[in-house]
């Protein structure tokens, strides 16, 4: 019997990451500079925050396709508020609250509405995107003034470390704590592992699921704030397809799509793999057409190596 559940499987993704870094590093001196690593981490924070929320949802046996649209809608609203003169800090907090609420709508449809998570979030994904386009009338919002707070979120740094990276790591630690050390974390795993047994042990599985969707929405909004700050404007197509990168990161990290099994640090590694691929292939000058194919193959290999236990 394996008492300690540390085996190759747990490290599959990590090994893949190290291999990727080494191989790309050998071919490209530009890739292996510290400043590139920092910018790589900063790029990964956008997908990373979303992927952490996604992990919670997937652990309960669900999925959240709406994250990209939630991101677009919250950034649009936030930009709208700011351009209408709302204080930047207030607008940002409001945006996080709205993201949480949008996520909760998906969660509500899944739990009370008894829709399959895929369908429920497909609906919210479409509707939120539509609302974004309606709100922005199809045009970007870019008159955001010159708030230093807004600039700091995406472009600032503390002790040389970009603020998005700090955010990424802090959120990672918080999620790790919540999932491993709190009763809520246990309930998340239990809901995905055997919902019926969890219910009979006194777990409110609907509440647990609803909260994970709300978290996912909040993370999408947070990620949107970084993007808004970096781009200096909100775009109606922002975040399009982000759900796919997030789901891929979760899968790469070894979390079971059926729920109940998985680790947040696996997702962390998965996020880095996606980022290294994006960044490395760009630096190596691989055409973007090929990039997607390579990404697909790497995901396939990682997930396959994950299967043998």
């Amino acid at each position, binding site marked *: *019997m394996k008492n300690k559940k540390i085996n190759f499987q747990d490290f599959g993704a990590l090994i893949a990451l190290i291999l990727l870094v080494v191989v790309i590093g050998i071919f490209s001196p530009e890739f292996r500079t510290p400043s590139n690593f920092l910018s790589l981490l900063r790029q990964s924070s956008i997908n990373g925050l979303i992927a952490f929320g996604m992990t919670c949802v997937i652990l309960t046996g669900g999925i959240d396709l709406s994250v990209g649209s939630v991101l677009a809608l919250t950034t649009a609203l936030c930009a709208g508020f700011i351009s209408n003169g709302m204080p930047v800090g207030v607008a940002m907090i409001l945006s996080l609250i709205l993201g949480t609420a949008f996520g909760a709508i998906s969660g509500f449809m899944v739990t009370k509405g008894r829709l399959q998570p895929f369908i429920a979030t497909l609906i919210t994904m479409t509707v939120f995107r539509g609302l974004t386009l309606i709100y922005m009338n199809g045009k970007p919002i870019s008159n955001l003034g010159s708030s230093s707070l807004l600039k700091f979120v995406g472009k600032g740094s503390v002790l040389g470390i970009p603020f998005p990276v700090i955010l990424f790591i802090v959120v990672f630690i918080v999620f790790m704590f919540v999932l491993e050390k709190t*009763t809520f974390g*246990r309930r998340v795993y239990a809901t995905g592992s055997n919902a019926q047994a969890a219910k009979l042990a006194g777990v409110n599985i609907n509440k647990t699921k609803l909260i994970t969707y709300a978290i996912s929405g909040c993370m999408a909004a947070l990620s949107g704030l970084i993007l808004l700050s970096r781009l200096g404007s909100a775009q109606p197509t922002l975040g399009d397809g982000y759900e796919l990168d997030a789901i891929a990161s979760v899968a790469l990290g070894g979390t079971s799509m059926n729920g109940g099994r998985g680790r947040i640090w696996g997702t962390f590694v998965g996020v880095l793999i996606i980022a290294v691929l994006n960044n490395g292939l760009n630096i190596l000058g691989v055409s973007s057409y090929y990039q997607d194919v390579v990404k697909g193959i790497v995901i396939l290999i990682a997930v396959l190596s994950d299967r043998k236990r």
Partner: protein
Amino acid sequence: MQIEMRGIDKSFGSNAVLKNAGFLLDHGEIHALMGENGAGKSTLMKILTGVYTRDAGTVIVDGQEVCYQNPQEAEKAGIVFIHQELNVLFDLTVEENMFLGKEIKKAFGVCDKKAMRQEVEKILDKLGVKIDPAQRMSELSVGQQQMIEIAKALMVDAKVIIMDEPTAALTQSETDVLFEVVKSLKAKGVSIVYISHRMEEIFYLCDRITILRDGSYIGTKKIADTDMNDVVKMMIGREIGERYPVRDVKIGDVVLEVKGLTCPGVFKDVNFQVHAGEVLGVSGLMGAGRTEIMQAIFGNMSHVTGSLYLNGQEIKNKSPQAAMANGLGFITEDRKVEGLMLEESIMKNISLANLGKISKAGVLNKQEEKELVQKGIEEVHIKCTGPQHECNNLSGGNQQKVVFAKWIHTNPKVLILDEPTRGVDIGAKKEIYNIINDLAAQGVAIIMVSSELPEVLGMSDRIMVVREGVVRGCLAKEKANQENIMILATGGDLDEK
């Protein structure tokens, strides 16, 4: 067919499960295989039928050494295994399940539905069960599913049938039917390996008995030459004394009162009370609605009317969570579907019902968790490698003990036990009975649903009999006996003398 297994060893990783195990099965006999939970009975049979490969030892079938690579090979040779853990596809119909992989076909691979329907009906008839072949498996009770598994084995022209705790989910009358079938098979020269923890059954049905302890062969006895005490001693290496420990508890006030509980089409106007320190046994046939009544009390059924009173105060159990907050606990009947997270460790399973207790402000205290789990494992003697042992890899009886351990520290005022000792060995049963008695002594009101009549009779202060969703009567301990219960359960009336 004659089978000899000799010197079988088997390890899973570093866990040596079988060490020099074996037995000899004669032509046309019913051979009991006994041993504590985790002794290796199921594993030995899985090795015989090619589910697992052995590390060492020989298997000789009719004078020839064999090594089946998979269950299909064994089945071809005439050895059929009815597994302890049901292998059913819940979304398929009864018919489809029974013919899975051996559909009767017409030309071009088209299934001959008519022929299959006839065949199914013939076999179900023989077993005396009334189940619609077109029903989905998920709609059947565990007991009915078990009967389908047995029916499946009868379809194959078997020379040896291995039954791994076939009666664990059956009630008395289904068990009786099964025994008739087993006897007629024996008369036809079929050999049966019969694994069970129910002593009465073994002594009633079997010819010889082989005992395993800790994965090793201990001995084989003719039933005529041995008795229960002897067998128990061989199984656990010591005597256990009284099987149903006496309880000296003063029965207190009414704790839970159920009034007019009704769920249309399932049960009707259920009224009863349980007192502090009392064990109320609930008996009835399979499908009588006992489990549903308990699920309703625990807030896990919809469309239920009626009222519940706890210590005289009306309570509403809208969900299991509310029921727990009101001081109820519920050990479910089906450990696989409702009781356990099979892919998780013992630790995570036990702590799930105790999360509030081992945490502060939502943050788990790992130390307290470890202590609680360790205590649970020790109290009910779960045979495992430690708290991290995955429940999937526990023997059936030990899985049941995990479910038990999960609930005993939730400090319930009322504890509902639905088949609490299903598949549990005789030594562990007594430990569970002792725990039940301890809880009763602390003033917990206990409701125990059980299909094992000796257990209900041995443990209960009163016995409530349910038939087709209606409470037929409550028998006081002095008036209760096997006969009275069966009369009520099958619809008869007790003439008042």
